[in-house]
């Protein structure tokens, strides 16, 4: 999975490059994003392109968050479609992620808040 990484200060903003994040590609995402999570503590995942996410996709998001919080970092999400937002709400994941409308807001949030909440 080829992911474009945008570095803004000490924040790494990664665009998830698939329309559907589910059991078919969630492992691939976890594998390919691992170097980014290892190299950074402040990460934004831009989900603008994602139209559908199942529990495997949500599980991948949770895994990313936990890897970062384990090393006092944080993950912020942005660009969620209504449907993806619905999937987060369905299983109460929206209560443990910081979610922003756009990338700029997510990046800005890192500059105004300390990391490591979970």
């Amino acid at each position: 999975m080829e992911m474009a990484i945008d570095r803004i200060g000490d924040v790494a903003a990664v665009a998830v490059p698939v329309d559907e994040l589910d059991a078919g590609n969630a492992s691939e995402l976890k594998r390919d994003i691992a170097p980014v999570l290892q190299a950074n503590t402040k990460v934004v995942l831009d989900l603008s392109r994602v139209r559908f996410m199942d529990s495997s996709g949500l599980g991948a998001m949770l895994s990313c968050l936990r890897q970062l919080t384990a090393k006092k970092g944080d993950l912020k999400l942005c660009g969620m479609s209504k449907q993806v937002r619905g999937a987060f709400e369905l299983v109460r994941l929206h209560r443990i992620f910081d979610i922003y409308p756009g990338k700029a807001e997510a990046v800005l949030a890192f500059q105004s808040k300390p990391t490591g909440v979970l």
Partner: protein
Amino acid sequence: MIAANTIDARPVPACSVASLQEAIERHVRYSLGKLWRDLSPRELFVAVALACRDRMVERMLETEERYRRGDLKRLYYLSIEFLPGQYLGNNLLNLGIREQCGEALRNLGADLDEIESSEPDLALGNGGLGRLAACLLDSLATLGLPGYGYGINYEYGLFKQEIDRGYQREKPENWLGQGTPWQIARPDKACVVPIRGRIEHSVDRRGGYNPMWMDWKVLMGIPYDVPIVGFGGQTVNFLRLYSARSSHGFDMRIFNAGDYFKAVEQKIASETVSKVLYPPDAPGAGYELRLAQEYFLAACALRDIVRRFEQGHKDCRDLGAHVAIQLNDTHPALAVAELMRILIDEKNLEWDEAWAVTQATVAYTNHTLAPEALEKWPVALLEAVVPRHLQIILEINRRLLDRVSGVWPGHTGLLRRMSIIEESEPKQVRMAHLAMAGSHAINGVSRIHTEAIKTSLAPDYFELWPDRFHNVTNGISPRRWLLRANPALAALITAAIGDAWITDLPRLKALERYAEDSAFRTEFRAVKRANKEKLARIIQELHIRVDPDSLFDVHVKRIHAYKRQLLNVFHIVDEYLALIEDGRQPAAPRVYIFAGKAAPGYWFAQQVIKLIHNVGRVINTDPRAHSWIKVVFLPDYRVSLAEQIVPAADLSEQISTAGTEASGTGNMKMALNGAVTIGTLDGATIEIREAVGAENMFVFGLTAAQVRAAREPCTYRPWEHYERDPRVKRVVDVLSSNLFCSEEPALFEWVRKCVLNGNDEHFHLADFRSYADAQGKVGQSFGEADRWTRMSILNVARTGPFSSDRTVLEYARDIWGVQAPSQSIACK
């Protein structure tokens, strides 16, 4: 009595003969891609249905706009079953364009009656529960009320019944196999339904407990809308049926996955959820899938209801003011937990707020009296299928029991009785308790049934919340069951008293005086006879010739022990033996007509079908009985067949064991069509007796109170009836002999065991003599044609209270709080 709204019967636009003809031809060419000469009968039906649907859709869009402008409270009727039967004739009648359509088809060289009768029944239900739902939808639309049905789009509806040497054989009824012209797919309104998985306990960003539902599978619920047109064509609501599909992503993976076949198997598994309608009396069959179906319905419906609410409103705390949800029995009871989940997990309401909204929104109709028939699901199964919902149910229960402890401290027995969780092995969730706890209104479906709920089924809940309990006696649609099913009688009535009865059934009362009008009685008899001739032609397809002047004694309904088809057989055999052994002729020649399906796997009911056939074969071929008794079993009972049988019935058999039938609606359909009832004091038959007068029906048997007393241990002694009454003894002995099963000796030995067992819960022998005596009076009365016709007319005239319009208006007033848009809004 609540007055029905006056219906403004303006015709729908573009309903001239020419426009209908043009529409049919257009659909033949452009929707079906056919030349007229190449059309099959089914394709012709589809073209006519599409022309009709166009006009309904126009009104449906208008109706929705009218509701939106008025910001009207909506009613959502959740039911695991809907049993509409055929739609075309009904829709054309309700739109007021049937005559024009008939003429358009004549111009094209086709016959509307033939086309209507070729339509396959929409059989998404087993019996009364689903048919009630269909009648209520008809009334909602006729009364202009914003009410919608929500159900499952079963690929295989109720099985097709075939008879093979007297045995029922079940054949799949793939009614969707060729598609249906009535449904409009709404893929844009598909909803994602998570299922299975586990709860991961975590804390949220504020440090609060946050149970997360992880590792679920996903089902997609695709809605298909069936427009429901009310009489007069002014209002068209819809019935939204959900099909289960795998997600698009899943479909795509099949093509990319290494294990193609495994992927396809998983896709099929997820689509199985809406594959087949389950029968009600088959314990164990498809257990887990049935729970998945119930959850699928609740989840799809609630997701859609909340989505529709949010189109016009912001705050979910207001849901109860704008939305009413009616649970048709406990099958959709997970809606209580699903609504709580949505409000708490997705809309961030606090528990107490969410609970208040849920209770303000949901109401529950109970349809059963037998405690063993109440739905329960193992806790472990719920945890596997809907883990988050189980968490919510457990919390609802904890708070409920806290409340009960507060009101009645120290009553551990009471806590055990009222708990949503039954402390059995395995532990089970009592769905009726969940439904009652989560509802602001709980209703029974006849007066005696509601009293039984209060006194024996849920007395503790009644004591806790007496104001929540209501009675709403069931009803039937006069459009479907008189105007459509019996056009000749409908025309005769209209000629006598006008047509206001169609939307205001109590107006039939004006017919009472015609019972004394000999000319009217003659015409009334002629209509009945013509209906009987028609049914006789259907019966002749079974190679049984019946005389339309005989008494048509009709027992049509699901085959079940409590409905006591066996008691009817006892009487037939008693009459037959009296004729051939005692030389005692019946008071009137009689045709005993049965129809009904037995649940697959329900051994007793299947045996009763076999018994009826074997008894019929012996009697129908015995020349001594030739002109006196005929026994007929019409296969594949369904709505469209009922529409043929009911208008031809002279006698309506409503002979369930007292205290077992919640309401019944067949009793109402028959009375409305002039059949005189022979029945026990059970369900709505009690109210029918009050309405039509005890002198106009034949009541027999134990009362519900007597049945309860007889159920006390060691109280009922059937042997005494057997030894004391030679008629009882003879019937039991002969039925258990090989007279009716010479080719399969000892086949019916079960009859003796069944009725001579002190545990016979249906008291066949206790009621037999009383039943036979009542049948004797029936025969004598039928022999006096004028007297019988008077009774028959008075049954029609006094059946006004049993319109589903009255039922819906009572629900609307007492439970739903929904209203029709004001006329000024409607006419804008």
